[in-house]
């Protein structure tokens, strides 16, 4: 089971993240590099906005017809010789997979990268059943060695520097220390190759499931998804119900936008169209294939007209990279398999009410909405969830604070009609704050303002040299 997040632990972990300057440096580097790549491919691709609108439209259509599409997909998959299991909860999904592993006598499991298996807490369940579980995406492998969860849905080890990873490999494998990404990758390749060739069971996630042809699409750069889905005798794909798209012709729109926003590539290195177990005479492909289709709170999201939009997400991870909060506290602070803006939306539904505080961990700046390849209005959903959460918990009930806020806004509006009054108040404020300033910064103030200055420093107000509305120089 994924660790149940508690509000207190979120505050602790986000403070720890915020205090970790080194972490911010790494996140800043990685995010900046990612956004540069993205800007570059977007600039040379004239149809990006058009493809984005198309992708959005397909998702709207797919989610609106989700019941029919699930039936169609399941029928096609079975016709191709796959076993299909629909799981209502994480427990059902876990038990099914553990049973398949047991019944096929599997001992060694290789996993391609999959956030959905993180969501259902698959690894510990398989390990408790006596299996050896190997994460094979390089980033996932690294965090598995460190016995910690991934901190980003695309780049699991984004919180680590090459020196961190060099030290880790030196300690775990006893190889001479190196921080060269090439050498570290070669070391991991050799070890994981061994794992692929001897594995009994492969597990991956799914990016898109095409109802019309019964094809599962898995997108990746390294080859871990290809390996996990073709080398072992038994293969299990795990997908949320929202991954279904209607037709083969729809997939090209998504492939065009997903690689661009996720990694700044035109297409990822490998796009796998997986279609059932191996056929007579084939050397690769699994002997048997299972598909687990997971609900776990998704149909609840679907029932809410505001929330349903969150099911359009194609898990590109771009909203994490642009989010000022994510970049400041890092992915682990969210204590959910899905961190960042999209995580704050889906976690309360997928991880449960224990993640109810996450929608409050946002500045609502809207950068996520701007970059989202399927134009999900994340800030709107965050507000909606805040409202729901406040109604659910014994937070100050709405009418009173809302009325107070409205009255305050009215007062301010009256005042704001008199620029001279505003200026006077500003001057008085500046004078009042002056005694607290040290070296141009205000870092400490007596109660009740100490709550504010305990977590923030702000610059000393300076007398304004230009009138409001005067030309900028």
């Amino acid at each position, binding site marked *: 089971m994924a660790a149940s997040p508690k509000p207190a632990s979120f505050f602790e972990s986000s403070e720890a993240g915020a205090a970790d300057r080194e972490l911010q440096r790494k996140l800043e580097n990685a995010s900046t*590099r990612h956004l540069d790549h993205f800007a570059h491919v977007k600039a040379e691709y004239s149809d990006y906005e058009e493809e984005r609108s198309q992708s959005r439209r397909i998702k709207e259509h797919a989610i*609106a017809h989700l019941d029919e599409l699930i039936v169609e997909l399941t029928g096609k998959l079975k016709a191709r010789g796959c076993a299909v299991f629909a799981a209502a909860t994480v427990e059902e999904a876990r038990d099914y997979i553990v049973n398949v592993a047991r019944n096929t006598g599997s001992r060694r499991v290789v996993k391609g990268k999959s956030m959905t298996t993180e969501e259902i807490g698959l690894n510990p369940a398989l390990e408790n059943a006596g299996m050896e579980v190997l994460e094979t995406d390089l980033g996932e492998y690294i965090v598995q060695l460190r016995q910690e969860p991934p901190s980003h849905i695309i780049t699991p080890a984004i919180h680590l520097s090459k020196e961190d990873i060099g030290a880790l490999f030196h300690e775990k494998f006893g190889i001479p220390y190196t921080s060269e990404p090439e050498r570290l990758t070669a070391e991991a*390749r050799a070890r994981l190759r061994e794992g692929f060739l001897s594995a009994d069971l492969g597990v991956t996630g799914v990016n898109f499931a095409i109802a019309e042809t019964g094809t599962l699409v898995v997108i990746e*750069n*390294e080859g871990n998804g290809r390996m996990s889905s073709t080398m072992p005798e038994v293969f299990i794909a795990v997908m949320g119900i929202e991954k279904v798209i209607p037709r083969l012709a729809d*997939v090209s*729109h998504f492939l065009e936008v997903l690689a661009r926003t996720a990694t700044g590539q035109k297409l990822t290195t490998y796009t796998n169209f997986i279609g059932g177990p191996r056929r007579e005479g084939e050397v690769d492909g699994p002997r048997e294939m299972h598909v687990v289709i997971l609900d776990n709170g998704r149909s609840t999201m679907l*029932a809410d*007209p505001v929330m349903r939009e969150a099911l359009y997400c194609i898990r590109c991870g771009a909203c994490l990279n642009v989010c000022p909060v994510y970049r400041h506290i890092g992915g682990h602070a969210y204590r959910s398999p899905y961190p960042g803006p999209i995580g704050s939306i889906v976690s309360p539904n997928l991880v449960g009410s224990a993640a109810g505080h996450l929608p409050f961990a946002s500045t609502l700046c809207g950068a996520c909405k701007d970059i989202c390849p399927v134009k999900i209005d994340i800030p709107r959903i965050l507000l909606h969830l805040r409202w729901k959460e406040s109604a659910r918990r014994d937070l100050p009930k709405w009418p009173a604070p809302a009325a107070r806020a409205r009255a305050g806004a009215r007062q301010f509006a009256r005042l704001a009609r008199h620029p001279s009054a505003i200026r006077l108040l500003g001057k008085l404020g500046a004078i009042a704050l002056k005694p607290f300033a040290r070296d141009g910064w205000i870092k400490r103030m007596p109660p009740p303002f100490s709550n504010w200055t305990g977590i923030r420093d702000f610059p000393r107000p300076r007398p304004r040299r230009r009138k409001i509305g005067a030309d900028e120089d």
Partner: protein
Amino acid sequence: MADLQAIVARVKNALVSSGPAPSHKAPVAPSLQPDGHRAELVSRFAREVEAVGARIIGPVAPEQLADRVAAIVRERGLKSIAVGEGVVVDLSRVGKTLSESGIEVIRTGSVDGSTRPELRKQLAQVDAGLAEADYAIASTGTLAVLSDETRPSALTLLPPASLVVVRVDRMKADLASALAALGHAALESHRLTLITGPSRTADIEKRIVMGVHGPKSLDVIVVWPRDD
């Protein structure tokens, strides 16, 4: 299956209770680019292939193919190569030429329970794989490769060096056109892999490293018949 019916029923109820979707318009099929001028397509393809860290060879006339492949094998210092069945290009002649020049050649073909483990082991140990792509995609530098019993997907995955042949008339302008050309039937019965460059990762500090689980090098050989 009762579980499936239960979930479908839940989804149906959820759809009813959340009211009409913002738009029920059926998605539009992608507009297919005309293939355009062949030379233009090939040069676009070549640019994109090089951009993703693979190498472009050719155009090569069919009768020169075997010698060109042999040259690449020598240049890369490869001792053994697995050769798959061609799609529209005859790869068996290439295999023969390579054998004659002292390279160990493994021909892939249909297997049964007893021969499968052996071929798998060979594919895991061989230096290089030679395969033909069903289609190539000019706008992204991508190879679309179907797999079947004579053309295992391992050919383009397990060996550290990958050589892929594609004939010029199999060049498509974009992804949507390539998928349309492959058609539903192919996708309903085969696995398909779209390959864009050598295997790579950026998991360590977002720095790109080639050759993770798949090939470290990819040579794409464009075959262009003289009378075409």
